[in-house]
């Protein structure tokens, strides 16, 4: 299986270790992983801001870069959701492109969904030891149905004790540009999420989207919590929690 790895702009800039962890997992599952060099952004920030034109252009760019892969996998429900659920709509008026983009979208997966439902990863390389709670990122959950997959993978790790938080599926308040445009509201939503996380009393909080994690970590540290680890599911599963 030739998997095109969609690194995502946030992982690329803010936490490359997530990218390497994801690749490690995909290779452990027996995939050949390629990383198209010129990839930049899936277009979701533009799309959600109402800039359909930019989103269309970037969709075409992604198509060109990933079309020859058997699968496209992203360590993000947000970006995978964008490609899978919204790319066809963006190009619905152009039948030739629509066909190609539909094929691309059907082959695009969020990381944990791919590992469970396509690659069938059985042995998890990671060796996390401790308690963790899981935040269900909105796009992954509601656009792609990602909920059982990360939990199924974590369940295969003997050192992991998963404790569910109250309101795991409630939005953390990130929402891309929303976090800056409606900062006070976004901070309140993040604060509510942090309270639920702390109430779960775990060593770590884990999620599948770096946007959520940056938001959650940002609020945790500002409100004085410097102990709880904030980790991407890929990092926990791959056994790699060191940055270079």
């Amino acid at each position: 299986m030739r998997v095109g790895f969609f690194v995502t702009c946030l992982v690329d800039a803010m936490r490359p270790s997530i990218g390497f962890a994801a690749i490690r997992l995909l290779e452990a599952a027996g995939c050949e992983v390629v990383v198209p060099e010129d990839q930049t952004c899936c277009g979701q920030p533009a799309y959600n801001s109402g800039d359909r034109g930019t989103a269309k252009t970037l969709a075409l760019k992604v198509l060109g870069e990933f079309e020859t892969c058997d699968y496209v996998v992203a360590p993000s429900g947000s970006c995978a959701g964008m490609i899978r659920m919204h790319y066809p709509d963006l190009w619905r008026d152009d039948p030739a492109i629509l066909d190609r983009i539909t094929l691309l979208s059907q082959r695009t997966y969020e990381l944990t969904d791919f590992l469970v439902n396509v690659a069938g990863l059985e042995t998890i390389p990671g060796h996390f030891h401790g308690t963790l709670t899981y935040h269900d990122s909105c796009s992954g959950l509601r656009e792609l149905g990602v909920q059982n997959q990360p939990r199924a993978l974590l369940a295969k790790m003997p050192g992991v004790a998963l404790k569910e938080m109250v309101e795991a599926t409630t939005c953390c308040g990130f929402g891309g540009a929303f976090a800056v445009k409606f900062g006070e509201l976004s901070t309140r939503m993040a604060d509510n999420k942090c309270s639920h996380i702390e109430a779960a009393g775990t060593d770590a909080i884990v999620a599948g989207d770096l946007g959520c994690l940056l938001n959650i970590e940002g609020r945790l540290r500002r409100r004085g919590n410097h102990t709880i680890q904030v980790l991407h599911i890929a990092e926990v599963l791959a056994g790699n929690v060191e940055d270079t």
Partner: protein
Amino acid sequence: MQVSAIHFKRSVTEKLNDAKLQNALSRLQTRFVGGRAAVIDEIADFEASRTAAAAIRDCVLKNLDQWLLRFEQQATARGATVHWAESGADVNRIVAEIAARHGVRKAAKSKSMVTEECGLNEALEAQGVEVVETDLGEYILQLAHEAPSHIVAPVVHKNKEDIADLFADKHHLPRKTDIAELCREAREILRPAFLSADMGISGANFLVAETGSALIVTNEGNGRLVTTLPRVHVAITGIEKVVPTLEDVTTLLRLLPRSATGQSITNYVSVLTGAKGADDHDGPEHFHIILVDNGRSSLLGGEMQSMLRCIRCGACMNHCPVYQNIGGHAYGWVYPGPMGSILTPTFVGLENAPDLPNASTLCGACGVVCPVKIPLPDLLRQLREKQMARGLKSWQEKIALKLWSWMARHPAVYALSTKITVRVLKYAGGREGLLHRLPGASGWTDGRDLPAPVGKTFRELYRQGKRS
């Protein structure tokens, strides 16, 4: 109702810091969210019901003119008078004329959100007609001169102490402390109003084309009282509320109370057809039905038509994390939450409610619970597209988007810019690895730190052959 949606951001600050409101809003979680989840299980196949309900609504919208004509024909044949109102002002004028024609001095009213759009109460009062709201929540709002903050639970923002104070002040009776006592007091104060009203005004949750009937759901009994006792009844509702058959309305009724309040059925469902017969003791002598457009037809045939499926259950706002944190008044008009963020700009103009479509993370919780499968997040995004197309975005946002767009299309520039940016941010984060301030992004850093990046991008590391 006056539109104040332009002050959304300021209202948000106020509401986030309103401790009493925050406490009141937490009740929504238990009652409405938890309640709904429990009763949805009663439906054999919930998703199939949603699909059927959406199909019924779409079937009507596709041929709305034909269905309205059939409704009008049936209703008229049964003895009702059907009126058509293009705007809120039209509604007010029609009701005032009906009132004048029948010598109405006092009207008893059960809840109608459409009449809030029109400002009907004020218009009637200006004509010398006394209007008494009888739904307990609306009555409380009338006493307090406030607007509803939720389409189903209008005084969710008030606690019992507020209401006890209000009643003591306005009724001039000893202050009650118990919710049941407060309800009893309201009942006794309002019962004479029902009995002495010349006209009953109601909404209609649905209009049944098959029989020409207006269908009203209530729990309190005030809906039955205002449509039975006074000699004139006026039912006012939107043109999109028509439903083909009794079976169709039943499919919708299976979803409406469950989605709204977590009830399997509302205490009363009244299906009203025509005026009282010669031998009837009870019932209005004159039954008027007003079909209201007021901007609804502008959604037909367009990309946002699905918004007209709405059955006003309130599930979207109950499940919306934004609504849960700020309540309904911040939205600045009749309809709050996700459905309000779509209807308000549509009805009053996008330029008068520019923040509403953007005050959402597009988390999708609303779309999942909507009983008629309105793609609410998609509609919010479409309004953002309209803002973009009409140049209604701030210059900062326009520039940021243009810049991002250009960079994302030019990988070499993108790679270089990100390499520089992450080094700068890493440096700014210091030993802590946290940024406490970020120029241009105070919306983030006022309340949160930003974890600093590691200082190298994935792409540069990958290219260097690093594996971790």
